[in-house]
């Protein structure tokens, strides 16, 4: 690649720039609306039961509670008075019309990569096609001195990299389109890239290092690695699996849960097949993170026959509480109940998500392709010891290769749910 001829590089660059900036509309969906779906604006800017885009959703950040803002075109309480330049500055630089700095819960470090053409289309959509809602923004509850916003300018100066996405001439148009969507509007790194103590994402693209999308603890969950060759990432996934997952919320072996179910429901299911294929192609190109073994070329075998006897207390609990849906062989039921055998969420080193979903339950994405949004029940009534036993069983049964979990780990996850252990 180092020897790529400059003219070739220029031509690829020109072609990919045109391609990356071109957002095809899906099924007649207006382009700005499509981009708003791709950016999943609705997820954060809509409170439960509230009007679309009117804001008010609470975020408990490490420094205090903040609320998303009204981005409907209401002139007084929303962004109706914003010019295109105001809008672009807010989305890409995190600075509101009146000059105050937004909290970086708004993923403007990612949105900085959105092209001018797409910003323009988004502006037109929010200005002309979204219904204005008069709803004043709620003040944040961040204590002094962190409540001052001026340090955010310093944060931005340190961590915000301005400038629209620059296509990588070493890759083709499809890869660059995928990178543009993943690193930019898709802001996948907001959850899937680990953050530093200063709360910025440690990497905003693969060029910044292999911590990019390498998995992160987030809001009582572990958002798994999305690196295409991490064993606990997407190493066991084909590009087709990724496309199916983003479109339907399920594959034959797994299902989106927690925040990702919402992403599929509100955002990725609406993307065109071309865009989903580009995303999958890009993610699969990401090498294993530094220090992590490359994923072996593993095909999931049908799990061993059901054990004739419970091998452990955890196995007995599995047989009592889990077996009806996830089956004795841990194979689940394709597209209905996730397999637990050979499931990378189960096998990932950080068991936070697995413990969380056992305790708190969850619901798969409700999509056009999957009208039955099945749920995982919440097992809050199991005590911490029982949960540790059954989770340890799941992580070591059927050839799964992950360590057991401790009662203390379960207690920590339970604390994030705010549900006390039942007294026996």
């Amino acid at each position: 690649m180092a020897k790529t001829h400059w003219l070739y590089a220029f031509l690829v660059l020109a072609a990919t720039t045109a391609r990356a900036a071109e957002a095809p509309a899906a099924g007649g969906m207006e382009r700005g609306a499509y981009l708003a779906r791709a950016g999943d604006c609705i997820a954060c800017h809509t409170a439960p039961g509230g009007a679309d885009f009117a804001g008010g959703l609470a975020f408990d950040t490490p420094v205090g509670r903040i609320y998303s803002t009204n981005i409907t075109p209401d002139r007084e309480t929303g962004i109706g008075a914003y010019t295109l330049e105001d809008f672009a500055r807010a989305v890409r630089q995190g600075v509101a019309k009146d000059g105050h700095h937004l909290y970086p819960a708004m993923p403007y470090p990612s949105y900085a990569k959105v092209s001018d053409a797409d910003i323009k289309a988004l502006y037109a959509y929010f200005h002309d096609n979204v219904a204005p809602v008069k709803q004043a923004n709620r003040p944040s509850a961040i204590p002094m001195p962190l409540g001052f916003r001026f340090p955010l300018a310093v944060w931005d100066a340190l961590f915000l990299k301005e400038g629209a996405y620059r296509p990588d001439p070493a890759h083709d148009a499809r890869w660059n389109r995928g990178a543009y969507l993943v690193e930019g509007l898709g802001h996948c790194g907001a959850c899937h890239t680990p953050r530093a103590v200063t709360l910025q994402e440690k990497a905003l693209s693969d060029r910044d290092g292999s911590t990019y999308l390498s998995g992160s603890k987030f809001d009582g969950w572990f958002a798994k690695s999305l690196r295409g060759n991490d064993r606990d990432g997407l190493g066991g996934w084909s590009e087709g699996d990724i496309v199916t997952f983003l479109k339907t919320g399920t594959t034959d072996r797994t299902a989106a849960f927690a925040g990702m179910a919402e992403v599929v429901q509100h955002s990725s299911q609406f993307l065109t097949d071309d865009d989903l294929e580009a995303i999958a192609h890009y993610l699969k190109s990401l090498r294993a993170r530094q220090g992590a073994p490359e994923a072996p070329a593993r095909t999931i075998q049908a799990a061993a026959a059901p054990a004739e006897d419970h091998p452990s207390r955890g196995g007995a609990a599995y047989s009592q509480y889990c077996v009806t849906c996830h089956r004795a062989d841990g194979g689940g039921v394709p597209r209905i109940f996730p397999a637990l055998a050979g499931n990378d969420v189960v096998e990932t080193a950080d068991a936070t998500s697995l413990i969380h979903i056992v305790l708190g339950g969850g619901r798969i994405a409700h999509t056009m392709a999957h009208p039955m949004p099945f749920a995982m029940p919440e097992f809050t009534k199991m005590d911490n010891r029982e949960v540790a036993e059954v989770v340890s069983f799941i992580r070591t049964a059927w050839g799964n290769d992950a360590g057991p979990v401790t009662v203390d780990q379960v207690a920590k996850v339970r604390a994030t749910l705010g549900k006390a252990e039942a007294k026996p």
Partner: protein
Amino acid sequence: MTSALPQMKKVRIMRQTLLTGFLVLGLMPPAVAGSPVQDSQPPSLLVKFAPPKLADIPDDANGKQVLYGRRLVMETARLLPDNVGDVLNCTSCHLGGGMVAGASPFVGQAAASYPRNNARAGHTVTLEQRINGCFQRSMNGKPLPEDSAEMKAMIAYFNWLSAGLPPHAKVEGAGIGKIDKSLMPDPAHGKQIYGAKCAACHGTDGNGLKDAKGNYVFPPLWGDKSFNVGAGMARTYTAAAFVKHNMPIAWGLNAPLGQGGALSDQDAVDVAEYFSHQPRPDFAGKAKDWPNGGKPKDARY
């Protein structure tokens, strides 16, 4: 049988004694409607639904027998092919192996709580006879010999599930819940409901769904491989009560199965009428049912 777990039993009895105290002070036990066989019992005590834990089963002879009984309940068709004529397992109707409230649990069905009056049979039945009723109707097969190791193991499992309960205790969550029997079924609407809410698991043709090894995950709801007309589930209101309170599974956050709550009473009656009246095997012994009258209005013959 129950002596295998003396410590647990003691705790359970203490808990029940406390509960019983409150009940005697005036709480009325709720009516339990629509189990496949209309069991009628003497007035009894309401106890909380608290099945024991498989993890607490001791590794001894009794424990092994209980686990064998459990396995027979979970994999009946595979393990007892001479007795099961269709492809169902006990757990197809008694969800979670009879350990789930509202899903026709076996908790409270110890041998000591039998014989019970049975209007369909016209006489009292033993637990063995009751189990064999299922084999001949819901499983469209042949009865298990009453002295077989398999029958004894299943009863050991039932007894373990009910350990510590007074013989005629009325367990909260017994049966399959209630349905409004005055509702008139609309099978055409039921067909729509079936397509929208049932077919994903039970198949558009009611064929059920198999796993990679060929064992059924979701049972067929009609056809040669399904229950016969003598089964409780072939009756509209029994099926409707079951569907309303137990289908689909994995629908809500309620542990352990998240079952039920997807349909209104009317929708449940409509879909139950639709699937229960699809073609299915006949029941040879049907002429002997309800010899003393009292046949319910949704009986199939």
